[in-house]
């Protein structure tokens, strides 16, 4: 008799273990829900981890207000289907109340502003732990992130002073005012995520699949035509057959030309693709260390 697990089952077991640790170690944890495949995966894994009890965490969406319509529809359906609580932290509200100032110009983005809204939301609801769908393979600065990432009372990450993480023993102890970010799918790659979603037959937002969309090229990134993105006079909108490899704020999510119409097509495409998924994200291009800088400030 041979007891072997394939890598997807091994990853699933690890992530469920982490989700249950969070439920056991924290008083008031939440899942940060961006609407993308990674946070969808975390949500479905949470359902598995606690079934037949409902997911013991609310979903928290830090909403830039610059969304694809499809994201909100999907989010609201998911919340209903899994009977989970939704909390929305609004960047628009942070702007209206003067907590942050809107960036100006063509490449204005609300990505940076999200950090303040997130920290305010954590404070308002007194979350002691926020789980995110970040993966270590996504980006250089994430490769050293722990499963349990300790944040000081300002929500900041100190990459040089991380707690050692040994075996499967997660230390979620903290002082009053501090909190944790936990990343249950740290060890998954983009391909693992798609393979698992296909294996499980999980319904995904339509944006991930090939569709016709009016887009324009800005510095090598195909952006969707949208009232939220001011266009330069030289930029021309064209209808193309595209899909999105990541879904985030509409102003910084690039589309790829693609005819992948099913999960299997996507797996094929990802397996043979020669660029990383974040290659299409304008927010990472600003400087070589941009993600690391944002993480230190308290970004996911």
């Amino acid at each position, binding site marked *: 008799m041979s007891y072997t697990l394939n890598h997807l089952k091994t990853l699933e077991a690890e992530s469920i273990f982490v989700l249950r640790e969070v439920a056991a170690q924290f008083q008031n944890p939440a899942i940060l829900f961006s609407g993308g495949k990674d946070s969808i995966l975390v949500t479905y894994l949470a359902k598995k981890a606690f079934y037949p009890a409902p997911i013991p965490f609310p979903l928290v969406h830090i909403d830039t207000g610059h969304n694809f319509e499809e994201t909100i529809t999907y989010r609201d359906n998911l919340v209903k289907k899994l009977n989970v609580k939704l909390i929305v932290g609004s960047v628009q509200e942070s702007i209206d109340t003067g907590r942050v100032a809107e960036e100006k110009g063509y490449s204005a983005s609300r990505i940076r502003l999200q950090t303040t809204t997130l920290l305010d939301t954590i404070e308002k609801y007194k979350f002691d732990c926020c789980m995110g769908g970040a993966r270590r393979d996504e980006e250089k600065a994430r490769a050293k992130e722990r499963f349990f990432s300790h944040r000081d009372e300002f929500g900041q990450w100190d990459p040089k002073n991380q707690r*050692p993480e*040994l075996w499967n023993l997660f230390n979620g102890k903290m002082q009053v005012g501090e909190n944790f970010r936990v990343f249950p799918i740290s060890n998954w790659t983009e391909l693992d995520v798609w393979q698992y979603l296909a294996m499980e037959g999980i319904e995904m937002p339509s944006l991930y699949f090939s569709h016709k969309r009016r887009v324009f090229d800005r510095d090598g990134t195909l952006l969707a035509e949208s009232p939220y993105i001011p266009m330069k006079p030289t930029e021309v909108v064209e209808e193309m057959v595209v899909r999105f490899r990541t879904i985030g704020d509409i102003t910084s999510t690039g589309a790829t030309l693609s005819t992948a119409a099913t999960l299997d097509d996507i797996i094929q495409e990802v397996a043979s693709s*020669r660029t*990383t998924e974040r290659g299409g994200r304008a927010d990472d291009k600003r400087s070589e260390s941009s993600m690391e800088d944002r993480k230190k400030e308290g970004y996911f």
Partner: protein
Amino acid sequence: MTTSEIRNPQSEIFDSNSYLNMELLRFTTAGSVDDGKSTLIGRLLYDSKSIFEDQYENIKATSERRGESTVNLALFTDGLKAEREQGITIDVAYRYFSTPKRKFIIADTPGHIQYTRNMVTGASTANLAIILVDARQGIVEQTRRHSIIASLLGIPHIAVCINKMDLVNHEEAVFNNIVAEYREFATRLKTKDIHFIPISALNGDNVVHRSENMKWCEGVTLMYLLENIHIASDINHIDMRFPVQYVVRPYSDEFHDYRGYAGRISSGVIRKGDKVIVLPSGFTSTVKSVELDGKELKEAFAPLSVTVQLEDDIDISRGDMLVREGNVPKQSQDIEAMVCWMGEKPIQLNGKYFLKHTSKEVRAVVKEIKYKMDINSLHRITENPSIGMNDVGRISLRTTAPLCFDAYTKNRDTGSFILIEEGSNVTVGACMIID
């Protein structure tokens, strides 16, 4: 971005069902500075087509900016900004790649003695350790230290890669001498499965492709070893240990009386109908179902996460352990362990710490510091031993409540625990229980 049009010829044949048979292998890499660790990882990733174009363009640009004549594959594993500036790796960085056979997780750790704690962290979950040796230097202190740590942490397989063979004319004799010396040293290690591979990380010889320059080498390439080494039997499938992590109570009309014990199986196999003992209470019951997500499983084994229901209504909470009649772990408040210290302050005799073991948390007091081990030689220092950061030693502890444990050599899950400093809440000790 139109680059998705460019296709990788190797993966044209990607079979979307093949992944259902892929295993996961975790390995660590350790080596002294400049032994070529970063180059080797870059080479593994590059030759297995795991580096994406935008990443490649990135490191190409950085190499050019730095005035290097070739694309420096070592840059691929560079992590955080501060480290990039200092030009050294100071933490554990995780890397991922896969081939049609396996998915790999690399825990890339720095080699210097002051980073022993990072090496221990990376080693704690690894199936295999790659130990790099510079062919010109042969076995040095760091080689011994890394091997000792791998053995101490119970890594079942070691691959000793003798690198920079191009700088010693690819000579077989150089390789053989190093192998002989290592073998002699390795008699003192617990890890018995040791492989030797002569490589050039820079040129790629014997990394993914067989070397044209070392035809004398009859062994396999590093990639072949990583893809084929037998790891399924590294997990203990005999002694059933199920630490209860969380109690699932839906309190809904539909599942009114439902009470499920959620956890990850540490070792062994659990089936419906099994007679189990609950520790520490000692109550017995029978497994009513093993399930996940409402689907019943015929049996489940380590390292699966499942939910178990029992026939009897007994009081069970997080920190308890389900085991099988006739095969129980030790139970005691007195624990003997090897510790790798990670705290800034040395371990305190009579000091009190929080202790986390499986899903249980207790407090512990340090009763005795027996010796400090010189991790370059395995020599024991027994006179007034003080265990400071990055030191390894043997201690005796007394806990506020009994632990249910096995020796680390028999069970990496129920044989390990961490110590946490009170006040700062920082993890300060990684401990392995001795029989």
